[in-house]
């Protein structure tokens, strides 16, 4: 299957589009990457708007011209299309658990991070506490395993890329203390193992670029470092 038959529309800083890249790397499938401007509606490409008219977001996976959208849905599509290095285990109950924790990361862990950054000062403390609770839960889920997927990375690890990399950058830039390494030794070790994986390291945004971007983004959204 030629490279031109598989395209990924993504954004360099998006954890969601990086998830797709990791999965394709894991499967050893070559693809053409197309960078999209996701911050300016007017600059979104006609291809993006045609492929994802409902949400108008990245990532989009284009396989033989057919679009698949929503990162977790794309990950399952990739796993079902290329059978090597499975992302989901074969057992139905373990699959259900993996889907549950991936959903948990997107719906419970991430939203309070944004609230902590964009909400009022009153909302911030509660939001930080919510994130801490989520991370504590994930520490328990790891249960001494090297990865959420067991010996190798799986759906939950890939979904948690945000925690392994972006959350730490956000912590550094904002000064908010989401992740206490002493209280989360397993999760801390997992972060280091995850970002060191061969299939992951090429698909993380450059740190300096991300930090600069976050600083500017926070400033633009009224963040004050004197709080």
């Amino acid at each position, binding site marked *: 299957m030629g490279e031109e038959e598989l395209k990924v529309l993504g954004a360099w800083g998006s954890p969601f589009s990086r998830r797709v890249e990791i999965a394709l790397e894991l499967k050893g499938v070559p693809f053409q990457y197309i960078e999209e401007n996701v911050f300016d509606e007017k600059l979104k490409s006609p291809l993006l708007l045609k492929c994802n008219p409902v949400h108008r977001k990245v990532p989009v996976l284009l*396989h033989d011209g057919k679009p*698949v959208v929503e990162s977790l*849905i794309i990950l399952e*599509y990739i796993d079902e299309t290329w059978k090597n290095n499975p992302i989901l285990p074969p057992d*139905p*109950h373990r*699959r*259900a658990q993996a*889907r*549950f924790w991936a959903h948990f990361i997107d719906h419970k862990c991430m939203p309070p991070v944004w609230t902590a950054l964009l909400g009022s000062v009153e909302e911030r403390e509660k939001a930080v506490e919510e994130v801490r609770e989520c991370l504590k839960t994930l520490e328990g889920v790891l249960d001494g395993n090297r990865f959420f997927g067991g010996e190798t990375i799986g759906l939950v690890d890939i979904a948690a890329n945000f925690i392994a990399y972006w959350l730490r950058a956000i912590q550094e830039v904002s000064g908010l203390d989401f992740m206490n390494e002493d209280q989360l030794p397993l999760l801390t070790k997992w972060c280091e193992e995850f970002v060191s994986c061969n299939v992951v390291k090429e698909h993380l945004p450059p740190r300096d670029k991300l930090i600069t971007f976050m600083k500017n983004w926070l400033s633009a959204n009224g963040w004050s470092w004197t709080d």
Partner: protein
Amino acid sequence: MEGEVVLLDFWPSMFGMRTRIALAEKQIKYEYREEDLRNKSALLLQMNPVHKKIPVLIHNGKPICESLIQVQYIDEVWNDRAPLLPPNPYQRATARFWADFVDKKIYDLGGKLWRTKGEEQEAAKKELIECLKLLEGQLGDNPYFGGKDFGFLDVALVPFYCWFYTYEKFGRFSIEAECPKLIAWAKRCMQKESVAKSLADQEKIYDFVLHLKKALGIE
């Protein structure tokens, strides 16, 4: 091999209805346990400590949470009958996308119709109609979202049909007038025993919401 199947549920929940339909489609015998959400059982809290929500499917003592995850689990375990997801990966991704769309949009927008008034309610009504029209467009000329056969997206969406009456009363509009094909699809689904037995009565839902509004102090 069936094993022991228990469903912790709450009768008006569209999410619980999805799991009831999937179990019925596969003709699985299970124990239905009604939860009082103001007084959650120890079992519910033990089986879903993260969200403390229904529905919870318990199979041989092991919990599965989140309705769409439950439907996929049921489809994968009892894979010898009434398939809900098609075998083709692209069609599966499409069904999952629209089921995710239903989750992102329909519940919250519908909720705004009975929880809010004035401009907020009008905006929600407008957006709900747009979303239902988008979904209706996905039917094409097929009898079901799954094509010839009732499938995953049909299961994900049809429970909302018993809530349409409530949305229409509060929003003062007719969903059938806006989306006739969608209502024809819903009525077609209701001819299936698995759906008819799983959905709640629409007037009972309306009464339930009236009582809920009073209890929550919403005018």
